[in-house]
């Protein structure tokens, strides 16, 4: 018990580190809104096309639906940690093919039983990431034919500290509740110069807020499980600190520092999701998820584009040759999935959408059901029109899920 508490404390410290850690994107699209959404799931669920709304997970942390924690094994304490590496190539009609690499911690999560038939999960993941750096943007100095050159860069993101509660009402039905604390810091720096003279604007925007969600899972038949989730819309409050510096003959000097100005809230929309999972036999699991985000209702605007309703669809399949085999390779999980995100950003009547395919593998570790999960996702974001950028994304996820016995009294310590 004591050691578990220490484990929890350790978890908190590391999750603090996660919050400080680096961005997971280099996409110029991340300057829109609060950055690019990662929609990353925990553990094996990335390998299943980010589905999970209708997947029961007695042995895995499934943040797609809080009710999946209902019926959590009363003895197990689960720990999950993930690393994400993203290699992206960007191209558009003007310049082709620039390649960027980002690697970071992608999630930390623990889950444990609360009372009989109820489980709780605490996880920290990245809700959105900002990471862009663009240089050489030309603008005409008003009333002249001279050009000023701007560089803009942004860094940071929004983190999601989630508390999931799931309760198994009866054999068929589980209910769940999630409370998310969303917070983060996005730093943006903009430099504009003509010759050696200009200004630097540094804005540090801090956002924070809570979001509530509900979910249920229902065993429709022996092989079919359905689930639904709702995330309620919420507003993140924003505060801004701004530094303004002047550059003269290449040397900067601070002009002003404005602290703690309120900026407009960032609204997260109402989201509704439905999922289906089908287990034709012991070896196979097929999943299908659909989720709709009502960005239109938030009535928000951004300077470069418009927020539009977003739809995500995912499907996945998992194959385990023989779960309890003595042969190791027969216990390995094989996974494949497809994920489509219509995007919430529309620029010049073009939606910035995202499609990806994923292959994954899960290697059992230890005797208690731990697993080391690998997945490789190949995705495409954006469209190569006149001015927009197309991203080819190669994402590698490594994820470790570990189990331990919770509340076990040891006779020999």
């Amino acid at each position: 018990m004591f050691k578990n508490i220490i484990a929890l404390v350790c978890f908190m410290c590391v999750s603090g580190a996660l919050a400080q850690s680096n961005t997971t994107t280099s996409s110029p699209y991340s300057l829109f809104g609060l950055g690019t959404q990662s929609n990353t799931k925990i553990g094996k669920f990335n390998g299943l096309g980010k589905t999970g709304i209708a997947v029961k997970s007695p042995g895995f942390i499934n943040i797609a639906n809080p009710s999946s924690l209902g019926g959590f094994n009363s003895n197990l304490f689960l720990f999950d940690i993930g690393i994400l590496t993203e290699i992206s190539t960007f191209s558009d009609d003007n310049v082709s093919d620039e390649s960027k690499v980002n690697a970071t911690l992608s999630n930390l999560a623990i889950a444990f039983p609360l009372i009989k038939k109820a489980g709780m999960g605490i996880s920290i993941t990245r809700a959105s990431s900002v990471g862009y750096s663009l240089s050489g943007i030309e603008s005409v100095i008003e009333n002249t034919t001279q050009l000023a050159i701007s560089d803009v860069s942004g860094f940071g993101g929004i983190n999601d500290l989630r508390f999931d509660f799931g309760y198994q009402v009866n054999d068929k039905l589980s209910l769940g509740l999630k409370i998310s604390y969303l917070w983060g810091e996005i730093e943006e720096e903009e430099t504009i110069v003509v010759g050696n003279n200009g200004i630097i604007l540094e804005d540090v925007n801090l956002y924070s807020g809570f979001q509530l969600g509900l979910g249920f899972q229902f065993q429709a038949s022996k092989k079919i499980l359905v689930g639904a989730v709702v995330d309620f819309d919420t507003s993140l409050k924003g505060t801004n600190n701004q530094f303004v510096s002047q550059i003269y003959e290449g040397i900067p000097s601070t002009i002003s520092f404005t602290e703690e100005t309120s900026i407009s809230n960032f609204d997260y929309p109402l989201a509704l999701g439905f999922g289906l999972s089908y287990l034709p036999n012991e070896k196979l699991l097929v999943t299908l998820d659909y989720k709709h985000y009502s960005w239109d209702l938030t009535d928000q605007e951004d300077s470069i584009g418009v927020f539009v309703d977003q739809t995500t669809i995912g499907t996945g399949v998992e194959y385990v040759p023989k779960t309890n085999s003595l042969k190791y390779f027969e216990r390995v999980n094989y996974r494949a999935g497809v994920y489509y995100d219509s995007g919430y950003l529309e620029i010049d009547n073009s939606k910035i959408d995202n499609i990806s395919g994923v292959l994954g593998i899960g290697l059992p570790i230890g005797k208690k059901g731990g697993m080391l999960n690998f997945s490789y996702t190949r995705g495409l974001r954006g469209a190569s029109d006149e001015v927009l950028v197309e991203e080819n994304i190669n994402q590698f996820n490594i994820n470790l899920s570990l189990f331990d016995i919770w509340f076990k009294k040891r006779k020999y310590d």
Partner: protein
Amino acid sequence: MRNIFFIISTFLLVVSCSTNDGVDTFEVGSGFIPVNARIIQLDTFEIKLSTFKLDSINTSSTGRALVGKYTDPEIGEVAAATYFQLSTTSFNISEDAVLDSVALILGYDNYYYSDTLRVNNIDFHLINEEFDPDSDDDAFYNIHKLSYEETPITTRNYIPEPFTKDSLHVSMTTPLFTELFSAIQNEEIEDQIDLQDRFPGLSLQPKATDNGSVIGFSTDPAETFLRFFYYIPNELEQEQFTYDLAITGFDQDPASFINIEANNSIADLEALESQEELVLSTNIDDRSFIQSGVGYLSKIEFPSIREIVEIQGDGVVLSAILQIKPINFNDTEHLPEELSISVVDLNNDIVETSIANKGSLVAAQRVTIEEEFNEIVYQVDIADYITAKIEEAPILNQSLVLFDPAISNSVNRVIVDGSSTTEYETKLIINYAVY
């Protein structure tokens, strides 16, 4: 298992801080990326030009003796006269010396103003009062005069050749100087004080009828001196010697000064009686006058500059080029290479002798804009001054004034054009970064 948990946590804690040094920079065409800050150029600020006259200018020991009179087609008559005292440190002249001749050698210092093809006249007068400014600060001003003998010692007319000749030779073999030579020789004059009693100094005056040029002579003892040529007779030959008096000064007081008298043909300017009065450019054909020696200064104000914040919003003045357009000048030789800038208060008293921009003192530089028929303007970046003007609270009624750096020993004049006719007009061009 818990141990593994701890180990992995610690490992990843370290890893999470070390991966990824930051975001690489894009060069991808990014036409859709917005920029919050922008730079605009504004040049329609109202400029209020005026002219005022300094009560006096300190013209003591400027290094130059200025003499001449001319009539300026734009601004009227200008007459420059110089007063100086001559001295020496050695009062030994051989008893056997025989005076041959005396000459005043005036070394040209290459300064001239107006038409040097005409004949100039210089009357050389003996000053007959003590060479003493008799003022609190022991300095002579352009309005000063010392009393001198009405009849000149000698008169010289000449056509100035400041570049082809080294000096102007003026013969001064007169009783005044032959007697002076003897007095030193026989020790009637033993020191500076005796010398000054006997010979307070010379005043070089142009003739009232002159309309030629104003010429500068150096006051350096190596260039300008009163030379006594003598010889010492002996059996074999007559060897020539010289004995010089020069403008070196011997006490605290200055040894030379310039007096300027002017008759301004522009009635409004001639009517200025004291420094705090001024003449708006709009009253004199959209012009403002800068004249050295006489003391006219051009004053510049920007009445609407504070509106920049109201109209454009928060921003930073990146540069504020003050462009000054001179008109009606003959050639660039007479236009100074730079105009000095000072700050005056509402009584036209100078409160700051210079202004700085980004840590260096600045002056308005003469710029020839080649492309446009050799248009010439003066330009200076006064961004710091403008920023201070926009931000000042309370509002100080201070303004900029422009003048020729050679204000105390020349008669250069610059006419500033205040009308808005061409691209290269007098105006303030501000590059403003708005955010």
